């Protein structure tokens, strides 16, 4: 059942409305999970998950306990205009949470979203990197919430869990805001912007069912998922371009590389020269790889997981 979460009138004869699809089973008040996506208008991986999850849950409704809320588009104007941010507003939507009723329309919308999700037993916030980088299916957890969230993250069937530092600026994200008020929220990053990787989506949906099973929301036999690699088990190495130009990869995404191995080259179409060879700083697995060929000095090229934690 489609429900309006929060809305605001736009200047000329249109309403901005955040909607959700509420799928309720037996004892709808007993448990609730929220699956949210579309915060960044150029990230579409979550669209497939929302669609497929809704279809599969309809078929499983007789085995469903509690409520699943699916929010496919937290930023409808961004998605519809192929714009990562909030059209007409300078700030990234994932930097204005928990929102406010005393600032701007988008902050009012953000506040409405947080209030609607608050109290869920689990929120899964699906992102798709951006148009520049391809990511393996992974969960990102702020170290501040690691102890509480890591056990839940293991159910989601993702390949990798990255526990990252608690930067102050990240306090403005949806996940931080929800975790801060006691609603456990896991951030999923997978695939690449403006594209859909169905296999990753299917992998996550399998994990969502496993998590629901764990929460007692699915009356089905539990099928175990493979445990993810956790970043605290190793060390993440970064590769950034020192030169600008056109990036050509020399490894594949998810490939294992050795320290010093060429990840890719920066080519110079003017001269036919190689401006830079980009080498892996450590041995390990390429879990992030640049997708968009044009690079600036400093552009992120790859992240490699490997070695012992330093």
């Amino acid at each position, binding site marked *: 059942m489609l429900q309006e979460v929060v809305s*605001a*009138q*736009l*200047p*000329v*004869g249109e309403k*901005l409305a955040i909607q959700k699809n509420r799928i309720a089973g037996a004892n709808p008040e007993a448990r609730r999970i929220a699956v949210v996506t579309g915060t960044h208008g150029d990230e579409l991986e979550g669209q497939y998950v929302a669609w497929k999850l809704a279809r599969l849950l309809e078929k499983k409704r007789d085995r469903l306990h509690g409520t699943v809320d699916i929010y496919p588009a937290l930023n409808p104007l961004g998605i519809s205009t192929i714009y*990562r*941010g909030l059209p007409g*507003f*300078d*700030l990234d939507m994932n*930097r204005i949470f928990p929102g406010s*009723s*005393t*600032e*701007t*329309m988008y902050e*009012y919308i953000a506040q409405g979203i947080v209030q609607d999700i608050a109290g869920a037993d689990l929120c899964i916030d699906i992102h798709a990197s*951006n148009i*520049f980088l391809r990511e393996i299916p992974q969960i990102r957890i702020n170290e501040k919430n690691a102890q509480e969230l890591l056990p839940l993250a293991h159910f989601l069937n993702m390949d990798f869990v990255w526990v990252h530092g608690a930067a*102050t*600026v*990240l*306090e*403005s994200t949806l996940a931080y805001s929800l975790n801060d008020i006691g609603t456990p929220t896991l951030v999923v990053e997978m695939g690449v912007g403006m594209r859909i990787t169905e296999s990753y989506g299917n992998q996550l949906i399998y994990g969502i069912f496993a998590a629901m099973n764990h929460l007692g929301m699915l009356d089905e036999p539990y099928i175990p998922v493979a445990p993810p690699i956790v970043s605290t088990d190793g060390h993440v190495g*970064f590769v*950034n371009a020192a030169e*600008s*130009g*056109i990036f050509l990869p020399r490894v594949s995404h998810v490939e294992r590389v050795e320290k010093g191995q060429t990840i890719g080259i920066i080519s110079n179409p003017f001269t036919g020269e190689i401006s830079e060879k980009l080498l892996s700083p450590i041995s390990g697995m390429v879990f992030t790889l640049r997708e968009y060929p*044009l*690079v*600036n*000095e*400093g*552009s*992120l090229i790859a992240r490699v997981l490997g070695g012992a934690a330093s």
Partner: protein
Amino acid sequence: MKKELLYTISAMPYRQPIPVYGWRFGGPQRMLAVMGAIRGDEYQQMYIAARLIHRLEKLEASGALSEEAGILVVPCAAQSSMNVSRRFWPLDNTDINRMFPGYEDGETTQRLAHRVFHALQGYHWGIHLTSLYLPGDFVPHIRVMKTGWQKEDEGLDFGLPYLIIRSPRPYDTVTLNYNWQVWETHAFSLYTKENSDIDPFSAEMAVDSILRFLACHELLQAELPPGQDTISFEESRMATFYSTQAGILFPQKYPGDKVAAGEVVARILDPCTTEVREEIRSSVSGEVFFLRSARLLPEHTIVCRIIPG
């Protein structure tokens, strides 16, 4: 005066290297750094810095600067965006003023923030000529972020109408102002009326205020227009008025105007019939401090801020 190449931006393919210059006045002491445009639409901020350079050149030549004065003015570090009509970094739309203190080995805008910060670091005072994320016009003022390290009383030395004290939000921690303070520079943000246009009157007011600040700290001897008795005010205590209807915004009052309680500050009109959908009335008597400059406005959005009194 000495024009100095601070660094060169060669970050983008098919664009020529972009030099970023600073203008130095006085001695080598790091007393005051003034940063102009960091974003590509900060024309007013670049213009103010340019006017400051013009005025300081003449003052220095006349011997008006004291021996202790060591001043750096950087009018623009945003050429890469400004020359292609973009506010933020052209490739990924990231904001350099959300990347401070920067990171030498990080992503592009982190590296650029590092270079800007490296050039501006170590000064006793820092002034950032900056713009707000909401398009709107202000009464010219000095803004100080309440970090615990702020020297807000020094903000009175500019002689501008207001000194606004702001409690930082999470995204403020990655701005130039905040990080200047962390690295022990007494930091101020200076806001004037315009942003992506040039308002010569408030620009000259801003330049006078910076020269007045220098004079107040005995780094300059010059005849300057007298400053105002600055009113210090917490941002959170301003009266804020919002739209409860969407439409075309027609202001009835402007920054600097006095309003009485009950007076109409702005109207919101139906964009297809011009019927008045909403009259936004002030509930307090005071002075209009901030007014949105957007013509089309959604509901639930700030229209203006008024300083009561």
